[in-house]
């Protein structure tokens, strides 16, 4: 502790229109250290990071770099000071190429003084991508055509573009792994370890405890805008951290099935194919939870989109309660009792500019209004409060704008929307992405409870523990093709991963 911190923050404070986000936060980043920052959704982690990035104006903050007091009024200053950020919310320009996105905040390489040297730009981009082990992404493809996981990787990579400046010293990563598969996480960790060796400091935010214990040297816990503790990683434990974060004891065991499976088949899929998936077929029984597992780009998201009618079917059949549904669209799907949580909360899930209430009731307006026409705001708000509380939504009230919520709380709004009327079929795509540990287990309990009411559940997740803990069976997809359906009980994470990779492709 004798070394001068590379970065130190004291008395960071921020209010948003009267409600406190940061009360009095302090943090030290030592050279060569990976410092984990943990806390429940809405604890103030991202706010602290955005202050360091010059994105949010603090009410008050004392920031020092290597002992020298600095102020960071805008992102350019942060960049010039050698701070690099991976922010929680994906911000890419879909119209531009991968290479252009990587170099967005840098000067493009020039030719003849003013022409962009595209060859060199693409080459430098390739170098950065190679370094992260993601050479499969072509720097010239348009960002819009790149999958969500890969987009996240590109965003991460953009923090490693150094340009012609000195090597940056501090990396700050806000939930970089929330949208990554375990393989991608491993690669990112390799890069982080290298940064450590170079003497850089890394601030790392994640809700995944096992990651923290893998990569971090020290962990700081925040609660309600304050730092409530900081410890070396080998002096703490999961239980301790959870207690510090939530203030309660929490069992980390998945809720077990308590009712036997129904024999009724809710959803039958036969030989289904869309532009992105094919050869999919399964029967989902009432009360069953079916997992979807696969590597990045394997087609889990696309299969769910096909089931909800968002992508047109090439051929095949979807039968709901024995009746063939050829004309499925998201509208008719919700009307028939499907409930769907899409993968990407900001681009596909939420209306950020509207209130929690508006977001939660959007698919249910027909039922919850007067005659399907006149709004009934009181019932809407009652419903929103109730389902919001059931997922531990941290908000001022149902009328708060979703944009103002922390990332994890935005995710909870989407889940609350799907759960606000008991569905017939629940389609979940990464439902706990960015959700804190405590709320995650509440969500698991809710999924279990709703499945006990003869609801069929299809759950896609990159969190293998989640799949194994909740599902009855797991459907494996590889390159858009269904390769197996296996029973979950007795399966280990390693075995599941091997199934995802396919036979003998790889074993580690």
């Amino acid at each position, binding site marked *: 502790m004798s070394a001068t911190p590379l970065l130190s923050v004291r008395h960071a404070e921020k209010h948003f*229109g*009267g409600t406190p986000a940061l009360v009095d936060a302090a943090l030290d980043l030592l050279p060569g250290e990976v410092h984990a920052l943990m806390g429940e959704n809405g604890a103030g982690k991202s706010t602290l990071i955005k202050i360091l990035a010059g994105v949010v104006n603090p009410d008050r903050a004392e920031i020092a770099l290597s002992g020298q007091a600095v102020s960071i009024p805008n992102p350019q200053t942060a960049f010039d000071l050698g701070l690099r950020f991976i922010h929680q919310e994906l911000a890419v320009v879909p119209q531009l190429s991968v290479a252009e996105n990587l170099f967005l905040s840098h000067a493009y390489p020039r030719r003849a003084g003013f022409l962009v040297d595209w060859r060199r730009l693409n080459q430098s981009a390739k170098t950065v991508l190679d370094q992260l082990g993601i050479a499969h992404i072509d720097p010239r493809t348009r960002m819009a055509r790149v999958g969500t996981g890969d987009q996240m990787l590109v965003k991460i990579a953009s923090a490693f573009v150094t340009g012609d400046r000195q090597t940056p010293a501090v990396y700050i990563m806000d939930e970089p792994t929330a949208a990554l598969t375990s393989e991608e996480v491993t690669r990112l960790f390799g890069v982080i370890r290298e940064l450590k060796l170079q003497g850089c400091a890394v601030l790392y935010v994640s809700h995944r405890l096992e990651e923290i214990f893998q990569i971090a040297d020290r962990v700081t816990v925040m609660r309600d805008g304050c730092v409530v503790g900081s410890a070396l990683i080998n002096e703490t434990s999961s239980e301790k951290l959870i207690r510090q974060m939530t203030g309660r004891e929490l069992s980390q065991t998945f809720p077990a099935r308590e009712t036997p499976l129904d024999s009724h088949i809710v959803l039958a899929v036969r030989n289904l194919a869309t532009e992105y998936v094919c050869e999919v077929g399964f029967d989902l029984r009432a009360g069953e939870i079916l997992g979807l597992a696969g590597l990045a780009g394997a087609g889990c998201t696309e299969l769910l989109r096909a089931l909800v009618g968002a992508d047109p079917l090439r051929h095949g059949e979807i039968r709901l309660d024995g009746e063939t549904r050829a004309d499925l669209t*998201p509208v008719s799907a919700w009307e028939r009792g499907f409930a769907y949580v899409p993968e990407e909360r900001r681009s596909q899930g939420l*209306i950020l500019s509207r209130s929690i209430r508006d977001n939660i009731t*959007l698919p249910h307006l027909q039922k919850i209004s007067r005659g399907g026409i006149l709004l009934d705001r009181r019932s809407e708000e009652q419903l929103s409060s109730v389902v919001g509380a059931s997922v531990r939504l941290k908000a001022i009230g149902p009328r708060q704008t979703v944009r103002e919520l922390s990332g994890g709380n935005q995710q909870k709004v989407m889940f609350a929307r799907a759960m606000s009327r008991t569905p017939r079929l629940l389609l979940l795509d990464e439902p706990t992405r960015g959700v804190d540990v405590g709320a995650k287990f509440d969500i698991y309990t809710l999924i279990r409870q709703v499945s006990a009411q003869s609801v069929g559940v299809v759950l896609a997740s990159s969190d293998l523990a989640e799949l194994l803990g909740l599902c009855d069976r797991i459907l494996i997809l590889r390159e858009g093709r269904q390769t197996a359906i296996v029973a979950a009980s007795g399966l280990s994470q390693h075995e599941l991963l091997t199934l995802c990779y396919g036979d003998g492709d790889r074993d580690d």
Partner: protein
Amino acid sequence: MTTDASIEQTAARIQWGRLLRTSGTLIGFLAIIVFFTINIPNTFLTVANWLNISQQVSMLAVIAFTMTIVMVMGDFDLSVGSMASLAGIIAALLFRDSQPVIVGVLVALGVGLLGGLFNGVLVSYVGIMPFVATLGTLTMFSGLAFLLSGGETIFGRDIPADFSGFARGGIPVGMVGERTLLFPNLTLIALIVLAVVWALLEQTTFGRRLYAIGGNAEAALLGGVRVRLLRLIAFMLTGFGAALGGLMYASRVASANPTQGAGLMLDAIAAVFLGMTMSEEGEPHVLGTLIGVLILGVLDNGLTQMRVDSYVREILIGAIIVAAVTSSSLAKRGR
């Protein structure tokens, strides 16, 4: 370094900032009223003058209110001005053909709905960007108006007194000296349209869904909103409003001319933009549009009464719009 007093100051500043972001335009509007009241002491702040203003802006108001509906979805309709002209021409031609007033009016409104339907099909089913699609129909409607009228102004005996008399009439509400004060029919129509659009956008599931589309069309679609159908309906309503505004105009000038509505489109968009500066999220709301329309109308009325040169008046009005939108976006940037 930081004292308690300065913390309180910051907190106060934050509150003020939030208030200014959303009510700055309203405060500006009130300031304009105060200014004219001081400078035109005898005639500005009178019932008669405000009834005048309400009547003067009524056509613009109807078009701006219904324009708000498509702008809620983040779309535009550039064709409203030429639709207004076309509606006037169609009604006038039917009148010339000695059709009853009601027939002319209904047919013209029907043409408004049809034109809106056409816009809606292009935008939501064919998938053309609203700016391009309605730029195209702007020219089409205008060409049609010229073709039907032969480029002439239809006026005089061709326009029945029942039709032109409507714009001059009103409901007697009192006396000023020996003159009866009328609550103008045109104002009444604008108020009815305001009430309907407000109820539609703020109180119905239809409006809620339109705002959802405007916020994030993809999310709305995946959340079970019939995006295409609703967009189509919204464009039809805007087309209807444009035709209604055009008929009001024709009634007021007792004539129809293939270009007379052309100026309304930009003013309507300006009014909606002024209104958007009053919402935290920059969404259009019809009550905000009302303030926008009134700002334009009051400036015209007050500056005329103050004898400001017509061209200077135009520059001033433009400058005030730019100032309102700029300052509101600056305020929003400094969060």
